[in-house]
């Protein structure tokens, strides 16, 4: 029984995790996808590392059971790879669609208009809403938004 720690694998895993998390936090969806792929592979390495010391191929009759590698993490990794593959394909489709819909924003994550609107919206009560109040609600005025943009320029 060897106690050699596969240090190289640990180092690779750490690098993959850190780079992957960094990319996941990016606003560009393509980078998010790359980050997900890196983190997914880092996780696969982590699962692989849980099998402990390396041994012979875990095939019945090939080696003594005590000399074999632990086959269970390998089964986990296979499943995880398949899932990651499927999800990545879906993500690609999603990113493509997002890019088609909003070319000017490239492929970035879009703000939630509702959230932004709610910040400025008047409190709504059961009392009747007057015309003036309705005018103040941002969704009914497009002039304000234009003014803001002009100021920005």
């Amino acid at each position: 029984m060897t106690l050699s720690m596969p240090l190289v694998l640990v180092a690779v895993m750490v690098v993959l995790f850190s780079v992957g998390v960094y990319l996941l936090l990016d606003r560009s969806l393509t980078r998010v996808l790359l980050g997900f792929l890196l983190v997914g592979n880092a996780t696969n390495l982590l699962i692989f590392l849980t099998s402990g010391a390396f041994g012979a191929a875990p095939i019945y009759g090939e080696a003594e059971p005590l000399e074999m590698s632990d086959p269970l993490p390998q089964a986990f990794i296979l499943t995880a790879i398949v899932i990651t593959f499927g999800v990545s394909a879906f993500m690609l489709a999603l990113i493509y669609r997002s890019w088609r819909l909003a070319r000017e924003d490239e492929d970035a994550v879009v703000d939630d208009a509702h959230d932004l609107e709610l910040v400025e919206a008047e409190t709504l009560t059961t009392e009747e809403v007057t015309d003036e109040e309705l005018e103040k609600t941002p969704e009914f005025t497009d002039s304000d938004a234009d003014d803001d943009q002009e100021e920005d320029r």
Partner: protein
Amino acid sequence: MISLVPLVVLIPLSSAALALALPGRRRAQQLITVVALTAVVALSGAFMWIVDQQGTLVMQVGGWAAPFGISLVVDRLSALMLTVSAVVLLGVLLFSLGQGLADGDDETPVSIYYPTYLVLGAGVCNAFIAGDLFNLYVGFEILLVASYVLITLGGTGPRIRAGVTYVVVSLVSSILFLVSIALVYAATGTVNIAQLTLRIAELPSNIQLMLNLALLVAFGIKAAIFPLAFWLPDSYPTAPAPVTAVFAGLLTKVGVYAIIRAQTQLFPYSSVDGLLLVVAAFTLVVGILGAISQLDIKRLLSFTLISHIGYLIFGIGMATSAGYAATIYYIAHHIIVQTTLFLAVGLIERHGGTTSLTSLGGMLRAAPVIAVLFFIPMLNLGGIPPFSGFIGKLGLFTAAAELGTPGAYWLMGVGALVSLLTLYALARTWSLAFWRTRAAALGGSNAPVPNTPEGLMLQGRETALIERLHDAPDALPLQEQRETPALMIAATAGMVGVSLLLTFFAGPLYAYSVRAGERLAQSELLVDDVLGNPVEIGSGSGNNRAEGYDPRDSRGGDSS
């Protein structure tokens, strides 16, 4: 009966394959979906009865004995969750049949809705019968991938925007879950939940704490508990009404179910129970405050959904059998009622053309049936006696009083307050959308009777307002007001009926929950069921094959 256990997953999955193979034939797809989900309802109902009579059903897939093969476990909690989920899936399916979601009139692809819906059902059922952590993960992934497709159905701009948030957050939680599984396996050498009960107890307490927190974060994102819930109100409301309804009812509850399993079976003497109570309080309060500030009914309901997850976490955090019992009853109640409310909102959207409280009004006169169908679950969610929401909260508060710690009493206060605030938020919704006159909703300062000339003038303004809504940059997409198909109303009424059944049969159901809760509080019972009496399927060679190899041995016990 035991060999029927995997059918709750296999029937929806194979039906999904069959439905996918018939892309153009909508009628056939609908028939397959309805038949499959009806079968799942019948099966899970039978499981509930049998499990209650004869004890836990454990199936060792392929005849491999317990810690080596895949165990499928149906105990009282699983059986109840299966039944409630199957009923919800069927009810929402009938609603979407009525809505003609798959007809393409909501810009949806014709052929993928029903198969994806079935896959979602299969994933949910798989999560509930999983006897090991990895199978639970696979169940989560099945339902998540199906939910990615459903939440972005049609690929319109808002749905893609919401879908991106949802997908990325779910991916992160899945990765965290997988990492947690890897850590659990590294520490114990098994992923079988029953065996983990034994092995985790042997670990040093700091490692137990780390594993517990890792799993809790992974499940917490899915269950939408307080600091991890902000993705939910962003993403759920944009999906089609039936999809939102089924997500709201089921997906977060799968996360809660996983938390229950983790806290009762993996970490029965967990030190994070106190933390769970704090998290529950924050979930309750922050969720309901979010709901009160919303102007859109769907978003408002999404926030009440988050808020009421707090009640479930409250029950789990108490870690007593009474607390678990109340949680179990409350989950059943909450799945049904939250789904019903979202279906009622689907009716409102269909009838009124929008879900924005700024433009809805006068629906009590225009659609009295919808008003009633919203009113009953509203009172139910708010916890008005004699509805099931009241019974569930009463159970929680009784359990808290029995526990008697200051934290439990604090949470009773918070829970009562949130119950009132829920009622406030929903009653305000009801009075804005149904009670006030249409004219008041459109900004008329003195709400005239529609028949007067003034009223007619106001109707003219209505069209003008709708045009302005279309022109406004961030306006809600105001759909045309359409006839509400009878099947949609019937399905919603059916769900309201089911929620009332929870009240009528509260006695037997609560007694069942108590029995389930008592079992959860004794983690060794499930261990005996799964490991103690391995059930032989087929040739009985499982025991022989399973002998001789234990992953823990090969590594010389270096894990601890």
